[in-house]
């Protein structure tokens, strides 16, 4: 049914008038590029987060007082251990150190294998410290004066290690100003997965102030954030798309209007109305498909090869220059993008194409 000569001829005409199509081609490529960049970034972050979640503890217990997080004590550990089904409860120290000179927080994480004089930092933090001439060691300002630690190792920044400083537990308590028997959170080990929900309810029964998060809670939290915020992006997108398509429709109408005579010539040599509509449809499909693929390809290169400068900061804040996104290409995402961009594009040319096709042919006879 599709006639090769006809398709060839449509493309010949498209190339002849390429100037008229350049505008829509570039804008559309840009829209696809932007949208797919955002989807690529969020897919990639999501992928990394879910990997991180894999190694998380089954139940995480945090204490709150008047709505703020406060440390937990040994007493909490003891009473949670009493609950049947709980295998082990580990108290963990973890928190944020405020680095006033650069006005930012460092995430202090405990690594048991380190001694009292060294720390491991992420490459992001390394470059921040280098700004202030700390190249081999760093001085933490604590209540008891200065604690000086050597930089033992630098680890690569990724989505969760970006602002991390790994230190010994005692040093961590010192930096975070926590007592010997204080813990930032508890890590509850439950051998039987089906008991997790039940046990977390029990913990809340014991201490109404305590916040309990299970792994599944976290998982759905992530899902929630990504679906939800993705949707907000989408809605912003729809607004911009609608304005683009209105623009496109007007632009196409005017381009088609200039081509009135040409269309009348084609009609006079035997092109039917449906042929003209089909001709315009082929031409615009070629434009739309080329822009779509070009946009997606450029987005891939921009996000995963160049690391998405500028756009990255929308997602991760300003201190994220060292994060490299894991290249994740989800066919479903591309399919969604395709439906979302190409179909409205083609829909917006149907009406102008018909209008120009049914123009009467009196123009040719004069």
């Amino acid at each position, binding site marked *: 049914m599709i006639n090769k000569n*006809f398709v060839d*001829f449509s493309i010949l*005409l498209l190339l002849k008038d390429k100037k008229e199509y350049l505008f829509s081609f570039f804008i559309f490529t840009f829209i696809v590029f932007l949208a797919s960049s955002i989807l690529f970034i969020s897919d990639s972050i999501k992928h990394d987060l879910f990997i991180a979640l894999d190694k998380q503890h089954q139940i995480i217990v945090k204490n709150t007082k008047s709505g703020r997080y406060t440390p937990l004590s040994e007493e909490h550990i003891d009473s949670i251990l009493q609950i049947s089904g709980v295998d082990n409860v580990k108290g963990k120290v973890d928190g944020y150190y405020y680095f006033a000179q650069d006005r930012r927080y460092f995430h202090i994480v405990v690594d048991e294998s380190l001694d009292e004089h060294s720390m491991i930092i992420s490459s992001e933090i390394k470059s921040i410290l280098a700004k202030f001439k700390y190249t081999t060691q760093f001085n933490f300002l604590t209540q008891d004066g200065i604690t000086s630690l050597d930089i033992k190792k630098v680890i690569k920044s990724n989505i969760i290690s970006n602002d991390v400083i790994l230190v010994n537990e005692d040093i961590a308590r010192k930096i975070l100003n926590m007592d010997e028997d204080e813990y930032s959170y508890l890590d509850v080990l439950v051998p039987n997965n089906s008991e997790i929900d039940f046990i977390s309810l029990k913990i809340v029964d014991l201490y109404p102030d305590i916040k309990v998060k299970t792994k599944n809670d976290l998982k759905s939290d992530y899902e929630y954030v990504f679906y939800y915020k993705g949707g907000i992006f989408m809605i912003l997108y729809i607004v911009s798309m609608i304005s683009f398509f209105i623009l496109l429709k007007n632009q196409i109408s005017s381009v088609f209007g200039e081509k009135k*005579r040409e269309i009348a*010539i084609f009609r006079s*040599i*035997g092109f039917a109305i*449906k042929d003209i509509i089909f001709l315009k449809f082929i031409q615009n499909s070629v434009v739309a498909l080329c822009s779509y693929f070009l946009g997606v390809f450029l987005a891939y290169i921009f996000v995963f090869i160049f690391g998405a400068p500028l756009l990255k900061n929308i997602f991760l804040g300003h201190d994220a220059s060292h994060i490299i996104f894991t290249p994740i290409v989800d066919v479903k995402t591309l399919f969604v993008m395709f439906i979302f961009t190409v179909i409205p594009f083609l829909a917006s040319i149907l009406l102008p194409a018909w209008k120009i096709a049914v123009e009467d*042919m009196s123009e040719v*006879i004069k």
Partner: protein
Amino acid sequence: MRSKILIRNLYKIYNEKKENEFFALKNINLNIKCGEIVIIKGISGSGKSTLLSLIGALSKPSSGDILVNEQNIAKLPDIFSSQYRNEEVGFIFQSFNLVDGLSVYDNVKAPLVLSNINQDELKKKINLALEVANIAHKSQQMVSNLSGGEKQRCAIARALVNSPSLILADEPTANLDKNNSLIFVDILKKFKQLNKTVVVATHDTIFDNLAFVDTYVNIEDGAII
């Protein structure tokens, strides 16, 4: 001989039933036989172009019948009238109506792309038409670079490429100098040899008293006199 075009009680009225109602054609009756060359003469505005566009199914009559090959084309749906224009009719317009920005070859190709024929056949048909119209040597040139006479030969090649049995020419010599007009008259003779039915609407005196023309029709104010 079998009649090629049979026109009965043909009217074309613009702005019907309005104040500025205008009768472009009034009660036209005409019988053109196969292989005939017919010259329709009349001053501009007399309705000869309208008549031509009705025969070519470019517009539709207000009333009356136009039978081409015993088939009424007056009320054909668009798909069929387009097919008729494509396969049965070759147009040669006053302003040539070529598509600027395409080469001569591609312009001549245009009517053929609708039918699904293979590449070799396509090339053969185009080259044949270019030969007949004597424009083959310029086939790769852009039409915008051609002279008036060459443009017309290109238009003729396009009209012939689908080997139609009916050729309609609307003021073919109006944009040509004397020399090229004479060449067109020669081409008319060629059409006669090819046994095509040709209808020419013109007011050019160069077509007067030609021996090979079968019928002269004078038209004035939309009526045949």
